């Protein structure tokens, strides 16, 4: 199951050239570029781990790509995403975020429905255990 989170996730995987262009776009807008990784890509997990510090003082995307290569070398078996944070007044939030690396075996989720009082339904997104997902 292909995880779809953030921008571009319904498109084919971005090539490194395409990632470079997106990063350059972020830098040109003065956004801080972050690299984050996780082995817990649950959609409610907003807090991925940071790879290094936010990069807000670079001129060129090659610097970010250097860090990305290093992050992939260490955490190639996890999800890695790149995000651009706009610190300008009134925005102060992430403007762009997209996945740049996936584990060989993607995480799988399923929807669990629980009937509660008055036939109301409670929905829960549950991650399937890895062994189960492999089948």
């Amino acid at each position, binding site marked *: 199951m292909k995880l779809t989170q953030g921008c571009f996730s319904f498109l084919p995987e971005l090539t490194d050239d395409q990632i470079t262009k997106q990063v*350059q*776009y972020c830098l040109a807008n003065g956004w801080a570029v972050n690299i984050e990784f996780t082995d817990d890509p649950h959609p409610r997990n907003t807090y991925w781990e940071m790879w290094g510090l936010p*990069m807000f003082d670079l*001129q*060129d995307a*090659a*610097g970010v790509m*250097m860090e990305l290569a290093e992050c992939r070398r260490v955490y190639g078996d996890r999800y890695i995403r790149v995000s651009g944070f706009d610190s300008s007044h009134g925005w102060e939030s992430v403007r762009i975020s997209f996945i740049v690396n996936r584990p060989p075996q993607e995480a799988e989720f399923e929807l669990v429905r629980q009937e509660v009082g008055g036939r109301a339904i409670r929905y829960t997104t549950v991650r399937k255990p890895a062994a189960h997902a492999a089948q």
Partner: protein
Amino acid sequence: MLDVPHPTTDEPGETSFDLRKEAEAAGITDTLQQLDQELIGLKPVKNGVRQIASLLLIERIRQRAGLASAPPTLHMSFTGNPGTGKTTVALRMAKILHGLGFVRRGQVISVTRDDLVGQYIGHTAPKTKEILKKAMGGVLFIDEAYYLHRPDNERDYGQESIEILLQVMENQREDLVVILAGYGERMTSFFASNPGFRSRIAHHIEFPDYAEAELLVIAELMLKERGYRFSAAAREAFEKYIELRRSQPFFSNARSIRNAVDRIRLRQADRLVSDLDRMLDVADLETIDPADVLASRVFSGGADARSANP
């Protein structure tokens, strides 16, 4: 779209080129002319810069003509005594490289050992990489590069930084240009003990010391930029000043002249203010008198106190 057009080989077919137009479009004509006018003397440096600019221009045209071309190695070394204009020329060089599309952004990141090398194990690599990231797309200027290498200490962290630099200089030649700068002899022995650097550097430019006449012209240029001028007698006094100052310790060429000019302004202002009961005219405000020059400690034997600082 956001990228400066990068030299590519996939546009063959062009068969004739208007060289003047090409040079002007890349902005080299302007930059070289500026270099000529704003920097006094430095003949060999100007020649060296012009040669590199020509090579790059021709290289770019050759690419467009579809001729065989290898991406040129652009890393350089600038050697010369303090205050001979190395940093100033490095800034111009970045402009030329950017104009021709050999670096994408054209910023200059100027560093010394302290910016690259850490204090404890595991500190150096992130520090060096942080700087490299900032320099990507531009020029990394490493002043007094020989401090990176401490021959007396095998376990010095500088070596780690050197290895990272060498790797990036080789593998990411399209992403940044490294300029190493320092004083002549020490650079020579640095290169001798670090053949890796030597072989990655294509262009060596030497910055000669300035002649006394050149230093005088530099002083007049600096005064003019600040809206002052020497009186005839003050000019003579300053010639004397240069002659004496050059033989005193801590002389650093154009930088010493800049410091001297700043102190002369100070003394001139002091002289004007010491007599509050007179009417000043514009000429008074502009003119440097011999007294402003002659009050310098250089004439009483010692170098000016502050000129010891760079």
